[in-house]
């Protein structure tokens, strides 16, 4: 079975500062990894995904994430955040064989003007 841990439930950061949201996963099989974003009162949308190949993946809105297999991590980063990045961010994992998609508990990012 797979599981996802997001180490920070809330992350406040000042506008234009860098941010890192941490994600660790557990799995006995190969997995795909995702970050989804949920803006206030909306559904979730895909931010970026890691399938294979380069361990650094780029997503929408200037976000990127790095897959580290040895540390079973998939941390999300942005070099300079904007007010509009205020949202809930979810890390997710699914086996490469297609099955359940398991989400972490989420990290609430608050960008302070």
């Amino acid at each position: 079975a797979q599981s996802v841990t997001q180490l920070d439930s809330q992350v406040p950061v000042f506008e234009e500062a860098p941010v890192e949201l941490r994600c660790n996963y557990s799995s006995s099989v190969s997995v795909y990894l995702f970050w989804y974003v949920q803006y206030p009162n909306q559904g979730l949308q895909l931010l970026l995904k890691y399938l294979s190949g380069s361990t650094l993946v780029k997503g929408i809105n200037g976000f990127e994430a790095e897959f580290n297999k040895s540390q079973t991590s998939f941390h999300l980063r942005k070099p300079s955040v904007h007010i509009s990045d205020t949202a809930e961010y979810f890390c997710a994992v699914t086996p490469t064989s297609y099955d359940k998609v398991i989400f972490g508990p989420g990290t609430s990012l608050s960008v302070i003007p």
Partner: protein
Amino acid sequence: DAGITQSPRHKVTETGTPVTLRCHQTENHRYMYWYRQDPGHGLRLIHYSYGVKDTDKGEVSDGYSVSRSKTEDFLLTLESATSSQTSVYFCAIGGESGANVLTFGAGSRLTVL
């Protein structure tokens, strides 16, 4: 939301009554999922379907049943609603673009009094 609709969007009901939430897709995707979202828990998988009449349990399936008689419709039923089932329910579809990237509906907010 990219060809996926949930109904009803809001519902208030009383303990012990049956409730059915509907998810309808126009994308012809094989996989459909029901999640519930609660503060501090992120999204937890209730049930999912990998084809017509093919369903399986998720992390929190107790008290819920599902049915999928057509590719486009995935129903979630609470046979006898309880206050602990007060939540926001999200439907998602996936499996067609590789790596099981999910597209989410707008959510259904259920309050059980």
